[in-house]
């Protein structure tokens, strides 16, 4: 009981004590709490940091190995490329040397071949010489032709002159001008005169026609050779006095063209000529001249001349004309024909029986 009383006596103070303790604890709670948190956080941080440090170390090792590996790989690649480039450069160098030699050789031999060029130029000069020679020959030939033509023309001129002046020929009595009695031999003109035939006047106009024809014809400078108008009667003539007919009429009648009759125009033997013409034509159109005579009496003993087609041994074949089917009686077994069972074809029954037997003697 006493404890109870003591407890009850302490009771009001308990509440206060309780409040006082809680309060004091509360006052320190935050502080303690914060301190605890601080301690815990620091410790956790330590732990985590240790962990991280540990991981870092591990990672560093891994990364170190990995980077080393990558670097070595890269280095290896670089070395390979450098080596490759070095080799290629070397090859290029060598290739350049080869190509240099080859191109020089090829160009010297084929493209800019000095010797070929020289030969070509020599060939050209030789060819030129030939061409020049030929052209000179051609020119000379033309010159000669021209000279010949000129000479011939001069000769012709001279001859023409001689023919025109034929009257200057010297006679027995009178010496002509080209045959002076004081000179030993006559002039060559004299000899020419002796040789030439005198010129007749009617031949002269024909010469000049051709020369001017070519240029004048096209330039229309020569007057054209038109058919001139009909000549008209002279004007102003006095009509003659007296019972004369008109001059124009008279002239017309006088110069009227002849109009002969048929009898006059035809020749004397025109009838016979026409007959002969007809006969000739008939003879032309006939095949042969044997007259057509009637049968039997005239041709009794005449042998028939076959035409060429028939007279050769390659004449007509007998097949199709004399016989139609080949029949070889020697090969027959029996004389009688086959006995027919079925009705035969009517046409074939008549084979060999359509004509009389006299035709088979052939």
């Amino acid at each position, binding site marked *: 009981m006493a404890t109870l009383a003591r407890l009850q006596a302490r009771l009001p103070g308990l509440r206060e004590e309780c409040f006082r303790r809680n309060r004091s604890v509360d006052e320190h709670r935050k502080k303690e709490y914060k301190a605890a948190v601080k301690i815990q956080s620091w410790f956790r941080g330590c732990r985590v940091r240790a962990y991280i440090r540990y991981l870092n170390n591990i990672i560093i090792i891994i990364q170190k190995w990995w980077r080393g590996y990558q670097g070595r790989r890269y280095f290896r690649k670089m070395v390979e490329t450098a080596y490759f480039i070095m080799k290629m450069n070397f090859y290029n160098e060598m290739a350049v040397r080869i190509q240099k030699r080859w191109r020089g050789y090829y160009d010297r031999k084929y493209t800019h071949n000095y010797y070929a060029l020289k030969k070509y130029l020599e060939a*050209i000069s030789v*060819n030129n010489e030939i*061409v020049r020679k030929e*052209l000179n020959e*051609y020119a000379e030939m033309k010159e000669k032709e021209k000279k010949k033509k000129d000479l011939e023309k001069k000769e012709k001129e001279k001859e023409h002159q001689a023919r025109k002046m034929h009257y200057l020929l010297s006679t027995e009595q009178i010496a002509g001008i080209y045959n002076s009695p004081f000179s030993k031999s006559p002039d060559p003109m004299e000899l020419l005169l002796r040789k030439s035939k005198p010129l007749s006047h009617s031949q002269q106009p024909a010469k000049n026609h051709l020369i001017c024809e070519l240029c004048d*014809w096209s330039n229309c400078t020569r007057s054209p050779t038109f058919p001139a*108008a009909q000549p*008209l009667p002279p004007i102003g003539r006095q009509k003659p006095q007296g019972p004369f007919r008109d001059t124009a009429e008279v002239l017309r009648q006088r110069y009227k063209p002849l109009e002969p009759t048929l009898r006059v125009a035809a020749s004397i033997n025109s009838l016979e000529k026409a007959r002969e013409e007809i006969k000739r034509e008939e003879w032309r159109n006939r095949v042969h001249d044997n007259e057509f005579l009637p049968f039997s009496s005239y041709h009794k003993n005449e042998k028939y001349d076959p035409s060429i087609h028939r007279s050769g041994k390659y004449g007509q074949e007998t097949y199709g004309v004399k016989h139609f089917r080949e029949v070889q009686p020697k090969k027959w077994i029996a004389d009688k024909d086959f006995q027919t069972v079925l009705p035969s074809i009517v046409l074939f029954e008549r084979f060999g029986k359509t004509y009389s037997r006299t035709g088979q003697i052939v």
Partner: protein
Amino acid sequence: MSQRQVLQVFEQYQRARTQFVQAVAELASRSQNIEPRSNSGVMALLRPLLLDVVPTIQQTAALALGRLANYNDELAEAVVKGDILPQLVCSLSEQNRFYKKAAAFVLRAVGKHSPQLAQAIVQCGALETLVICLEDFDPGVKEAAAWALGYIARHNSELSQAVVDAGAVPLLVLCIQEPEIALKRIAASTLSDISKHSPELAQTVVDAGAIAHLAQMILNPDAKLKRQVLSALSQIAKHSVDLAELVVEAEIFPVVLTCLKDSDEYVKKNGATLTREIAKHTPELSQLIVNAGGVAAVIDCIGSCRGTVRLPGIMMLGYVAAHSENLSMAVIVSKGIPPLCTCLIEENEDHIKAAAAWALGQVGRHTPEHARAVAVANVLPTLLSMYMDAHSSEDLQVKAKKALKNILQKCTYLPALEPLLHDAPPNILKHIVGQFSKVLPHDSKARRLFVTTGGLKKVQEIKAEPGSLLQEYINTINNCYPEEIVRYYSPGYSEILLERVENYHPVL
């Protein structure tokens, strides 16, 4: 009675007309009788006579008109203005051959003066009628029609095209094959006039098969025919490579070379023109000509002619040499340079000299060998003098300068360069000194010669701006010689020496 009187009056009138027209035609054939002003009335008088009943009068009237128009272009214009052409054209188709010839003569006489008159003829529809005349049997009519067409087509390409559109070309090709020489000549000349204007027209002529016939006629002995044929072929070949190849395929080489030896000057000229037109297109064609010996023939041709006739030959050599150095060497080997030099010196005309200068430049510009060949012929001083001469035309000066420059840039033949040092103007001098500066460092004999001929002295006297190319060349040359020599030859050295003498205190 009265009927006879009437008849007599008519006959008198007819005779008067005939006399008048024949007299006019006669007088018109002599040019001193024609005076333009007084004769304009003649047109009005002759015009109704063209429609006369009597054929003789018609023909003589046409003849008279033709002769009048032929003489002078004013009269030709009067013919056109007098409306005579349509009548002529209408009656051309119906009449006989003498009238056709005379009418074609009138058309030709009118058409030859100027393009406007030719246009007037085309506008009145004369071309179709002329083409119909080309089909006529009489060769004189064909010739007159072809001549008229040729004169019309000559002026410009539109008129040529009109002639071609009228269908003249196949008929002309047929005319060429006719046996009459005059007709062949005229037909060839007409084809030449048609094809000279443009490549399409030339192609039309080629399509009608003209080349084969023209090529056959080169062998004909008649000189005038050859002129026309060669001219026609060269007008065809000049337009393009294909046409030139077609002409060459007709196997004209080496026959054309015989034409270059013909006695007629113009045949030679036209032959050279033909080879020039073919050679100028490509190196292959030039090669063909060289292989056929064409260069030798042309060179002989140049040597034998004088004057303008030489010009196409000179140009041909220039074209051949311009294509490649092998061809240029071929020209040199065929002894082409001496005739060119003589042309340059002898000829009076500036354009021929210019062509010769150009050709020499083309020959010498390729390699030092070529330049040496040209320089040895002693042609450089001539070129220089032509360049410097104030009387030469501008064209000649320009060409001479270019040729000189081209040759000098490759020339290493020093003896030929020496004389040029003394007279050349600065722009040429630069090249000469440049060449010296290239050669002298390597050749001791040349150096010695250079000094002894006074070249070094001359080089010292040249004033050049420092830093210019000329100065560099001069420095190079000076570096080839020891210093004392250079100073010895420098201008004013004697004064310097004398000054030194003056300033010298004698050592007693």
